[in-house]
């Protein structure tokens, strides 16, 4: 995961979710701020594709660790919920 500015991240979320997560892009910024406060991402100045000044964010090593941890936790939860929602037939006889 490389560096990106807010607008790229917002569009990446929207497109990556096949347009299911259609949120107002503005709500991303407080989230970015919170991540930054926790030291999981750091901002730096950069220029956009069209050479506009923009605030870029990069994952910190701590942020990368958090991402891995949260990702596996999320996968656990998803697996658990999937199991609950589609119970195995032999247990539900």
């Amino acid at each position: 995961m490389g560096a990106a500015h807010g607008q790229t991240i917002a569009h990446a979320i929207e497109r990556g979710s096949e347009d299911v997560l259609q949120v107002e892009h503005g709500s991303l910024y407080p989230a970015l701020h919170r991540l930054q406060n926790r030291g999981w991402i750091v901002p730096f100045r950069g220029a956009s594709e069209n050479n506009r000044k923009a605030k870029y964010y990069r994952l910190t090593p701590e942020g990368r660790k958090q991402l891995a941890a949260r990702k596996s936790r999320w996968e656990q939860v998803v697996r658990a919920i999937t199991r609950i929602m589609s119970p195995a037939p032999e247990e539900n006889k």
Partner: protein
Amino acid sequence: MNWRFLHRAQADAEQQRELESYIEITAEEYVAQGMGADEARRAARRKLGNLTRIREEVYEMNTATFAERTLQQLRPSIRMLRLNPAFSLTAVLTLALGIGATTAIFSVVNGVVIKPLPYPDSDAVVTVTHSAVFGNVRGRDFPFSPQMLAVYSANNQTFQEMGLWTLRQAAVNGLAVPESAVALQVTQGTLPALGVQPAMGRWFSRADDQPGAPETIILTNAYWERRFGGDPGVIGRVITLDSSPRQVIGIMPATFTLASATIDLLLPLRINLAQPPSDWNYRALARLKKGVTVAQANADVARMLPVYLERYAGHRMDALHLQPAARPFKEDVVGNVGQVLWVLLGGISILLLIACANVAK
């Protein structure tokens, strides 16, 4: 410590820039897809949502975390204080004593040394005096005589105003009960040199000093309140002092003091140069002209002293070896106490530091 709290405004401005940049970049993309510039900008703004709400949310985040973290940091300390009351009591007492002592000494230092005398531009007020040799010792306060004042006030180049003063007891006997009062005797120049106007009425004037003019008196605020109940009609009235009538011409303001004395009345000191020149009963003070230093005043006095000696003393005062010794009037009031107090304040401050260090451990 979380310093984000202090940079909230700056962070907010930056947040606004970031959101602005989102709109620009997104609008550019929309334009590339064939949208009109204005429409693209509107669409980008819509996509972003409510700008103010976003900024508010970030702003509150910075505020709330500050309070929360401070509380978090304090919590262990509070728990410690509760678990160990003996230590807490000692710590609180040590700090209380340290702070109390420092505050007490500081209020004295402030009152005595830092606050100027209750006269306008009080640094310009000086005591004019001479040092003189008695036996083998040089004393610093040889008194003033009316003749000396006459020479100095006529010939000086450094004084704006100059006058003599002395304190004496006087008997007030025109009222219901006779009483003894402290009178400050001043020449015409003394009150102007201090720069203190009467709260009501007027200063002594040259006309008051003319032979045959009615005797005058000024009351201090405290005496006026005490004996006349603050009655403004007292101006112009005649009271009897040492069996002779005097007309009240003014009331001094409540803030008026001179050399920490408790003064009831102010009397004019009439100068009669025909009297023998041995009336050494006065002290002199002067207001320096703008920009004149005490050293310059002393040089001026050194120039005038021979004039006085030649006219009034001949060689009779040679043994005294008079030398100019003018000094800020403040020194008369504060004296050497100033230095002592500073040292005391320094000492007490170190005590407070030690107390802090002990408690911090």
